[in-house]
């Protein structure tokens, strides 16, 4: 920056940088306010210190929900099968994330069953079946254009019969402003609960890392319809920063658990907020 003291101009640059990472105006102003407060408190803050303070303040917004060590979905002892329902808007990477997640559980010695409850999108069932084969886990399906709730029910039931540790339910992509489709998710949940009262134990909302401010509305509506418990941010192997998730995590108190960094089976990482914050600011300008 070529300046030694944090002033208006430095803060303007900072605002630009945050906004450029999709952090959004609201959250950006909140972060800047926190920094201004600290500058006021500490009297003199050099631009060198600013970097550190910024990282601390952003990490603090993610703090309540995310430990720095990372927080994958852990299957608690005594719950069997642990049912995970995966939701999100069209094309964000739900099915792919399920494949990768199944691989991780499978590798950890867990018995996994997948449920093909996207019965709508062309060849969605085939896509999940191919992932099932790649990982080496069974996929429960009733084929295309069948009732997704009964597929989910059946997958949970089969999970119990097969003594599975984890059941992961794929759902069709849907835009959150479509009331009918959002109600369908609630129904899928309800039908599963006829078999296991606490199911699904986790609802994983998948967000595309290249999405801008619309992700906030996605989080709002999916949370309303399904009580989302965890977030996964995909496609962070590109140049998009996924900064919108900072505001979402802060506002909804939902932890980010995974990031997708590619299309291959091993390209799913446990979210680490320090690495995330670092990548946010590593942009060459």
């Amino acid at each position: 920056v070529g300046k030694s003291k944090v002033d208006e101009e430095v803060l303007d640059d900072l605002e630009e940088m945050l906004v450029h990472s999709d952090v959004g105006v609201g959250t950006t102003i909140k972060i800047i306010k926190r920094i201004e407060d600290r500058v006021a408190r500490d009297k003199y803050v050099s631009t060198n210190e600013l970097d550190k303070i910024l990282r601390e303040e952003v990490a603090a917004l993610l703090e309540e929900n995310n430990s720095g060590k990372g927080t994958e979905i852990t299957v608690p002892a005594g719950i069997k099968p642990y049912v995970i329902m995966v939701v999100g808007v069209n094309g964000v990477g739900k099915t792919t994330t399920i494949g990768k997640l199944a691989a991780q559980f499978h590798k950890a010695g867990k018995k996994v069953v997948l449920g093909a409850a996207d019965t709508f999108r062309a060849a969605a069932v085939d896509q999940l079946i191919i992932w099932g084969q790649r990982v080496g886990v069974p996929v429960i399906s009733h084929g295309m254009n069948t009732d997704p709730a009964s597929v989910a029910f059946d997958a949970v039931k089969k999970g119990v019969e097969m003594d599975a540790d984890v059941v992961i339910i794929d759902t069709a992509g849907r835009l959150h402003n479509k009331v009918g489709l959002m109600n369908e998710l609630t129904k899928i949940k309800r039908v599963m609960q006829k078999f296991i009262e606490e199911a699904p134990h986790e609802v994983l909302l998948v967000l595309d890392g290249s999405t801008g401010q619309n992700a906030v509305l996605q989080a709002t509506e999916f949370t309303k319809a399904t009580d989302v418990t965890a977030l996964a941010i995909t496609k962070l192997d590109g140049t998009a920063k996924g900064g919108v998730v900072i505001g979402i995590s802060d506002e909804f108190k939902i932890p980010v658990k995974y990031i997708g960094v590619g299309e291959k089976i091993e390209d799913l990482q446990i979210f680490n907020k320090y690495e995330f914050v670092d990548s946010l600011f590593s942009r060459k300008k």
Partner: protein
Amino acid sequence: MFDNLSTKLDRAFKTLKGQGSITEINVAQTIKEVRRALVDADVNYKVAKTVTDKIKDEAMGRDVLIAVSPGQLMVKIVHEELTELMGGEKQDINIKGDPAIILIAGLQGSGKTTFTGKLANYLKKQNRQVLVAACDVYRPAAIEQLKVLAGQVGVDVYTNMEEKNPVKIAQEAIAFAKQNHKKVVIIDTAGRLAVDEAMMNEIAEIKRAINPTETLFVVDSMTGQDAVNTAKTFNERINFDGVVLTKLDGDSRGGAALSIRAVVEKPIKFISTGEKMEALDLFYPDRMAQRILGM
């Protein structure tokens, strides 16, 4: 949001009281509000800056007394400016050639395969003989997906499950089209990130090998600040002719439309408004400007 923005702008204009026109001094805060509103609509912040600088020039000296409120006048000026930026000559898709070859490219999950089906449907309804070609050899069940969609709209699909090189499949499909009197071939390709050198080389190679009549870049309307990077890189590598904006049946503001237009200066030719094969529309700059402003 429209009320929102104009109320905000009214507030920002409070220093205007007693003055009859917009001046350098009273417009500064307002311009900042406009810029923030654009950024909140996912317009790239650099583009937002350029646009608001222009708006400022435009607004300067305008008589506000004739308007209901200075805020509303400002919104009107912004709307006009955005419309003009995204507009210009309306350009249709070019399907001259025998066969015309249309190459589809874009990021993962943006809606390419779905659009391929929709475009096939759209052209078929104009009584053209259409062939779609499945050149995504990577995504699980991508070929099957295109087969299903082609079946739904009733057009032929070219596939070669044994061939792993998409350049070859595209060439084979074009040869097949010529033999079978198809007038349009639409080439669906795999999603790819702009930073993926190997995959960007591949799409450039496909383009070079088939010399398409029209190359379309498909982009998700929910995309944030990164839209600019992606569009720039794809444009550098494949010099596309037009943009397809998808998932506009959602509630995204769609600021990416403005960013892309400003950065690559290519027209938006179609918008996608649903998962069904009929959910395809032409692009209207005026409506898009309203959407970005939340009007």
